[in-house]
């Protein structure tokens, strides 16, 4: 298993963002669904080793991120796209992706090819030497995806990756994460249930910091048909049925 969480909790003062989550995941694409404030971003930031858990046990790629040597090794094999991508406006696309390849300690002699491959994968070749300040929001999102995959990570974390992408780019991105999920563990946090249906092999649905559903997209659809979910698409009905049940239970 590349991700192993046992009873992981994260508090910010009195607010409990992640509440006793137990979860594991191997290679494949795991969709992390949930409404705003459900704890998806906090969970993703813990998986990215940026935020330590307040309690519980967390293992990534078979290592303990609390140990400095393990954390460094995890980070070498990790790709992360935060919800808000910060960037240096004066950098070109290639310079930005190269910067993160170096920070991820990709061996220097492999960096140029790794950068070129990542930029080509997100279809930004024609803009490779463009300054980031000249790019559209969708293109910046693709730059963020390129830096996340530049080290060929075994654990990939995407927070709202399709925000700002046009429909054609979203289709291409889903194909990319399906491809990456063949060998790596890809966790995609999203509001968009159609992304989950098209690209994810498994789904975890969060509400109030807890995982209230874990299963395949087909199982999520089945819950919608059995319950009283609302929505235009089968996945939306499953999503809303589970959330309604979770709210009623709490």
């Amino acid at each position: 298993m590349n991700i192993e969480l046992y009873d992981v909790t994260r508090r910010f003062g009195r607010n409990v963002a992640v509440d006793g989550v137990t979860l594991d995941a191997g290679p494949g694409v795991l969709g992390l669904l949930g409404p705003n404030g459900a704890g998806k971003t906090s969970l993703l930031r813990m998986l990215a080793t940026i935020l330590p858990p307040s309690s519980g046990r967390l293992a990534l790629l078979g290592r303990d991120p609390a140990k400095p040597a393990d954390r460094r090794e995890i980070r070498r094999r990790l790709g992360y796209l935060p919800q808000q991508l910060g960037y240096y406006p004066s950098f070109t696309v290639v310079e930005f992706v190269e910067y993160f390849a170096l920070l991820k300690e990709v061996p220097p002699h492999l960096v140029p090819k790794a950068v070129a491959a990542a930029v080509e994968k997100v279809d930004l070749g024609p803009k490779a030497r463009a300054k980031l300040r000249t790019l559209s929001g969708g293109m910046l999102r693709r730059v963020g995806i390129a830096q996340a995959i530049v080290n060929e990570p075994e654990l990939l974390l995407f927070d709202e990756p399709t925000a700002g992408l046009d429909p054609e780019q979203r289709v291409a991105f889903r194909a990319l994460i399906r491809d990456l999920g063949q060998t790596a563990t890809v966790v995609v946090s999203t509001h968009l249930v159609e992304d989950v249906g098209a690209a994810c092999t498994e789904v975890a649905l969060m509400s109030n910091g807890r995982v209230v559903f874990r299963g395949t997209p087909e199982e999520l659809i089945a819950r919608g048909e059995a319950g009283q979910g609302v929505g235009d698409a089968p996945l939306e009905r499953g999503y809303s049925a589970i959330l309604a049940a979770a709210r009623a239970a709490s």
Partner: protein
Amino acid sequence: MTAPDDVDLDRVWTNVAAEVWRRHPGRIERTAAKLLKSPGLARALLTTPSLLGPWLIGSTLVLAIGALVQLGANQPLVWLIAPAVAAVGIAYAYGPGIDPAWELACSCAVSDRLVLLTRAVAVFAVNAVLGMAASVATLGTAAGAHTAQLTFGWLIPMTAVCTLTLAVAVAVRSAAVGAGAGVAAWIVVVLGRGALDSTASTPGLSPSPSAGTGLAGAVTDPNLYVPYLAVAACCAAVVYYVTRPQRGAQ
């Protein structure tokens, strides 16, 4: 003309793109990479906001104006300005809201703590060189009576002010608050020491015979060197503690 069937054109193109897009690091970056034994850390060092051209020009201008005023009006401006300029530069070297890609950098293998400390040391060194150049340029003025003390003595309070600024900035995660605290503390020390001089006729409050007079006393009074170094050591310990890799609640 067509390519043979066994040629992977994508791979060929990636190799070509890698060569075309390859960035050639400058001499400073290559030297820093050798010294730091990390190309990633060297690249992070060269993206320090307060070591970029506009910031350095601003710092140089402030010190140059201070030197000119000192030459014209015999007021000890360079020694008083230099610690404050360096402190502000250190506060704006690294951190959330300062470095646009800070969150991403925190998920990378090159330690963000190492990036912070490397940048802080570099900013300190650059500002020390600029300050010394300005200080040496003002030698021979009436204010330069205690030449050696005035030329190099301000490095000690500068160390204290800079570490205080860094400690506050990392503790409250705000460059503005850190810079404000450092500069405010320095102003209090300078004015406080000056006020002590003005009461020199009062028995028991007289500064030591070797102490400077007026505002320069904050730099030239040897009695203050030990407290400065003690403050610097305490603040360095705070920085070390606050930036330690964490486990558990923050």
